[in-house]
């Protein structure tokens, strides 16, 4: 299923995730103003992507699984974006 030596891959991925966790905590010390949340989400998304691709084997799955794995992200976007546009464009009457 995975590459020739999956254990080595997993070890490398784990070390990468530990490094990214360190980055997550480290960058939080600095104040980037409005960029704080986007930076945190970017690092978190890289970690999540790595977990999905390698630990959850998404890299080796067929296109059907990819559709099942990615369409909820679109639904999540709809949920948050449309709730936000609703809330923040309301006019008090």
């Amino acid at each position, binding site marked *: *299923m*995975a590459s020739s030596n*999956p*254990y080595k891959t*997993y*070890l490398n*991925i*784990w070390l990468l*995730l*530990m490094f990214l*966790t360190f980055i*997550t*905590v480290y960058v*939080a010390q600095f104040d980037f103003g409005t960029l*704080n*949340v986007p930076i*945190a*989400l970017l*690092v*978190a998304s890289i*970690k*999540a992507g790595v*977990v*999905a691709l*390698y*630990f*959850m*084997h998404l890299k080796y*799955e*067929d296109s*059907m*699984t990819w559709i*099942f*794995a990615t*369409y*909820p*992200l679109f*639904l*999540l976007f709809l*949920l*948050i974006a449309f*709730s*936000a546009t609703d*809330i*923040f464009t309301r006019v008090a009457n």
Partner: protein
Amino acid sequence: MQIMKFIKSLAYPSEMLPPIVEEESHFDPETEHSAAKLGMWLFLATELLLFGGLFAAYAIFRAKYPTMFAEGSASLDVVLGTVNTVILIFSSWTVAVAVSAIQENKIKLVQVMLWITIICAAIFGINKYFEYSYKLSNGITPGTDIFYSIYFAATGVHMLHVFIGMAVLGVILKKTYEGRYSKENFTAIEIGGLYWHLVDLIWIYLFPLLYLVG
């Protein structure tokens, strides 16, 4: 001839019944395996959207009350949160190793890895217990303000998933001792592992959003 057959069947009713086959697949094992995995991904999609509601609430209330979220976030224990992040990512790694090990029939390795995972989950729960009890003893409850409502709801629902994951992996671990899994039959371990990785994925987002970004 039909009548004779019928009379005979009265005398030997078992001959009329189809042979009993235990745990027969509806499809060939390979199709069943990929169908089970696809079903798990579909379930994970619903799980993601369950937390999606909490993330949407977080986004909207954070934008409305930035000071409240900054103060609330600053009051959370970053060290404990970081330790729990490391523990969960470590346990995700051990589950991934277990899923690969079963495909090489390394049952012993699978059992060790699942034990480590379950112990990590327990440590995560103990840390969370200390975190909650510290908050509650300081008079901070889900009713304190919207930040703590979201904090307790999100981490609480996540904690519930950790416990469910522990139970699922515990049942799988028990069955490995009964010799139920091999490289021909490891679907349960793989989809149980997928569930555990989702628990990790959710925490990867919860940790920076709640503990760090203030």
